[in-house]
């Protein structure tokens, strides 16, 4: 048992990559057989999911921590650790990837490469959440760009090249500035403590203990980290890469992008910005929250007028992620819990929405809302699932979306920040109901106006397999949130303490 616990994080991180290598070897010796590639990819991603499940029970166990020297002279270590903040995000990732593999079963262009990139991407994403060494974190963060770039660029839609390049350049600019901040933090920490290390845990502790960063330094580093993360979130006005990337990416790519990649931004804010630079966080809180609120309303308004289903969902992401940022910067425990919960919700609901859009896109090869109408008649099961997911996205009580949005709004309202922010954000909830319900009405209900839609087949078994787990989770998370919240509470409390204590001390100083 000890052995398993010692290695489980490494396994969860690298099993997909190992699978990808095996697939390459298999195709080299046995010929490139698409069916075998699909099955192997599914097998390895499912195995990763199963391997990640025990983490729910063991997440607090210190024997899980992996720490080994990597580049000694620089103080870089191979340090993986799971805590309340990363636990659910890891599970979300490992859950979504097999579903994406299933949803991509129909792809027949370069299947082997597609699946290999998918698995490489999974390793990168899990690695980002588990890495507790800034160097390692940065490594996973960047390496993950490559498979995503290819997924969009090779298997994407019409304007895929433009979208892929835009995605990469946006992310690179942010992340390279983050690299500078990482180096600066590493040097400052080394100069003041004498220990040159990239260890996130150690640096966070030492910042709290010795307080060696000047206010000025905090501000610059906060800005550099925040820029990288806010591009990823994406926070208005840095969001323009997102609609392009979402629309052009293949269905699975959109699911991963919305479900996991965007969460890396908000995760980073919670992991780095709040606990490491608390005074700067307080200083920047209001501007960031204002941007978040603008994003909420703007995303909702733009979503409302989109003729394209995928674009609509993409802009709804901008709106939803605005909530997450709002909750994070409320600096209340409730707000942060809501933010974390909303990250998961968004991953599940938006992931499901993209899958649902993919289902009809596969049948009709169009995503224009005007092409559809009355789908509930030929596709009743589809319509039911679509409705549940929509309601979850709106935030209907007893479904997951409600819990997250409610906690965020309460957290923001009770925080020290102006209440008007929470009030405006609430209008975003209303707006989201408007555009989502209007969209479902136009797509699902009414008469079947288009001849092509009359004979559409309902969801197949494979599609059910991809959608049902998400629907189950939507309901489960709606009725039993404490299952998730109690496991993340400890870590969030600590972040809450770090961000507030120090800031108050700083004000006195």
């Amino acid at each position, binding site marked *: 048992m000890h052995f398993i616990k010692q290695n489980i994080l490494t396994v969860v991180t690298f099993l997909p990559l190992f699978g990808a290598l095996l697939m390459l070897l298999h195709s080299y010796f046995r010929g490139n057989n698409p069916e075998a590639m699909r099955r192997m990819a599914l097998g390895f991603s499912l195995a990763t999911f199963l391997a990640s499940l025990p983490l729910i029970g063991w997440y607090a166990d210190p024997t899980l921590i992996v720490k080994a020297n990597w580049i000694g002279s620089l103080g870089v270590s191979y340090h993986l650790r799971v805590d309340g903040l990363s636990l659910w995000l890891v599970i979300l990732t490992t859950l979504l990837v097999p579903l994406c593999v299933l949803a991509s079963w129909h792809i027949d262009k370069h299947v082997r490469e597609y699946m290999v990139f998918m698995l490489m991407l999974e390793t990168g994403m899990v690695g980002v959440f588990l890495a507790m060494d800034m160097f390692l974190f940065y490594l996973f963060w960047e390496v993950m760009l490559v498979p995503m770039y290819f997924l969009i660029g090779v298997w994407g839609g019409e304007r895929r*090249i433009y979208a892929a390049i835009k995605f990469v350049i946006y992310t690179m600019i942010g992340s390279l500035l983050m690299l500078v901040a990482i*180096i600066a933090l*590493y040097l400052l920490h080394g100069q003041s403590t004498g220990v040159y290390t990239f260890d996130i845990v150690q640096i966070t502790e030492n910042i709290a203990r010795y307080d060696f960063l000047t206010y000025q330094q905090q501000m610059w580093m906060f800005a550099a980290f925040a820029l990288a993360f806010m591009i990823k979130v994406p926070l208005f006005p840095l969001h323009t890469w997102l609609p392009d990337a979402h629309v052009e990416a293949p269905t699975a790519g959109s699911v991963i992008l919305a479900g996991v990649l965007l969460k890396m931004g908000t995760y980073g804010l919670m992991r780095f910005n709040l606990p490491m630079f608390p005074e700067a966080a307080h200083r920047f809180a209001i501007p960031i929250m204002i941007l978040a609120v603008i994003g909420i309303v703007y995303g909702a308004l733009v979503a409302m007028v989109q003729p394209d289903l995928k674009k609509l969902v993409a802009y709804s992401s901008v709106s939803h992620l605005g909530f997450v940022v709002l909750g994070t910067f409320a600096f209340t425990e409730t707000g942060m819990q809501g933010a974390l919960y909303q990250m998961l919700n968004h991953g599940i609901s938006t992931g499901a929405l993209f899958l649902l859009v993919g289902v009809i896109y596969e049948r009709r090869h169009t995503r224009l809302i005007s092409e559809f109408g009355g789908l509930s008649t030929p596709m009743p099961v589809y319509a039911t699932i679509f409705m549940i997911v929509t309601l979850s996205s709106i935030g209907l009580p007893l479904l997951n979306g409600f819990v997250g949005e409610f906690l965020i709004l309460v957290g923001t309202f009770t925080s020290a920040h102006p209440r008007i922010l929470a009030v405006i954000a609430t209008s975003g909830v209303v707006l989201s109901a408007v555009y989502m319900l209007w969209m479902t009405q136009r797509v699902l209900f009414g008469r079947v106006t288009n001849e092509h839609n009359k004979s559409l087949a309902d969801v197949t078994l494979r599609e059910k397999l991809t959608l049902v787990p998400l629907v189950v989770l939507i309901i489960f998370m709606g009725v039993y949130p404490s299952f998730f919240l109690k496991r993340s509470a400890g870590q969030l409390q600590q972040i809450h303490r770090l961000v507030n204590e120090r800031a108050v001390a700083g004000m006195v100083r």
Partner: protein
Amino acid sequence: MMTLLLQTSVLDINYVAIWPMIILSISGIAVLLFGIAKDPVHRDMSMIGIVGFVLAGVATGRLWLPVKTVGQIRAFSNMVIIDHFSLYFFFIFIIIGLLTLLISASFLEAERLPVGEFYSLVMFAVVGMMLMAAAGHLVMIFLGLEIASISTYALAGYRRNDLRSNESAIKYFVLGSAATAFLLYGMALIYGATGSAELEGIRTAIIDNVNAATKQPVHTELLFLGAAMMLVGFSFKVSAVPFHLWTPDVYEGAPSSVTAFMATASKAAAFAAFLRVFVFCFVPGYGQGLHSAWTTSLETIAILTMIAGNIAALTQHNFKRMLAYSSIAHAGYALVGLIADDWQAVAFYLLTYSITNIGAFGLITYLAGRGDRETEIDDLAGLGFNNLGVSIAMLILLLSLAGIPLTAGFMGKFIVFKAAWQKGFHVAVIVAVVTSAVSVYYYLRPMVIMFFRELKVEPKRLPLPTGVLVTVVLSILGTFYLGVMPGRLFQAMENAKVSFVQSR
């Protein structure tokens, strides 16, 4: 005066110290002589070349431990200094030289060009580069530089009947010689100002502010003017902005394998001499301000180089030309390490850059096909899934040049940025970072063409020649090794014994 010379200089002839150079010179001459034979056997000459490089590598390796114990070996009246700095660069030159031979074999055969002269020119160039890295005297830097440059001029024009090759060689020759003249003038002025042409003498003169010959204070104007002239000369040689204009033309016109050699080994050699003179000799001196003057001006040059190189690369359609501009940009990154006074960072950066680039150019020699013609980026269309091995290799190498983690390129940039940030060159680091984000765009373009565009015409490609295959495999292995496990090399460099310890 004559007696003075004989008295002060002991003719310490030490062949052991220059074994690597001797071996390479002998094998270069041997290859040349084989080439005269009526019907020279290609394979034999390749063998001599490879064996020569391997033996030179062994000889270099055998010097590593003695240097570790005694610190440094000086030979020929301080003309040659063998320390870990020189040995490290010897390794770079030997590896690059060897790989250049490997990638040019099939090209020379296909073009029916004389093999012996080509190989021997490469070897002589490497000898010159070694002398530059091991120089202990200005005249050695000059001689080494000229041995290397003259060989490379001839190599650039190696396809005698090709107009582009001619043009490339002439341009390289004219601008290279002009740069040498500037460098030489700088050397003369520094000699006059400090009263010594030995690097150590110059260093002492600057630190103590005493002219070694006249025992009077160092002549400041001459010193600054000389340093500025040398700065110009070296900037030409490493192709830093605004002295970079020759680079794209020369790189595009020269045979691809020669371009590979120029972009990697020649650049590394120029940086080796640059480091020797500027970082080890022009140290923060006694009331001279020379150090801060050259770092400030070089910081500006580095920033301009990074910006201009990367921006110009964005608009290129020719692969070799794009890599030429990319090499200008990379010179800028290496200069950022140089202004930080950190020879380890620069040397490591040059190693990562050379290892990656030689592989990329190796693939270009193969992809360019007959007559070295198909070097437009569009010629790669649809290569991706058609020739997965080659295109993935290219992908990895380009990612390394772009500086994506897990590759050597990232590690090199990381080390340089860290060194420069530590010394307070914040602006330079931020410019470096932003320009490397921009650079991703042009490194991605070949990938876009390779993978995202559909194939237009079925290309008729020959099988990958063994030499190119070996080079690319070694280059990729090196890229990953330096990117993932550079720890041991860092350790070795940290413990390296260097003469003229930086005064800090």
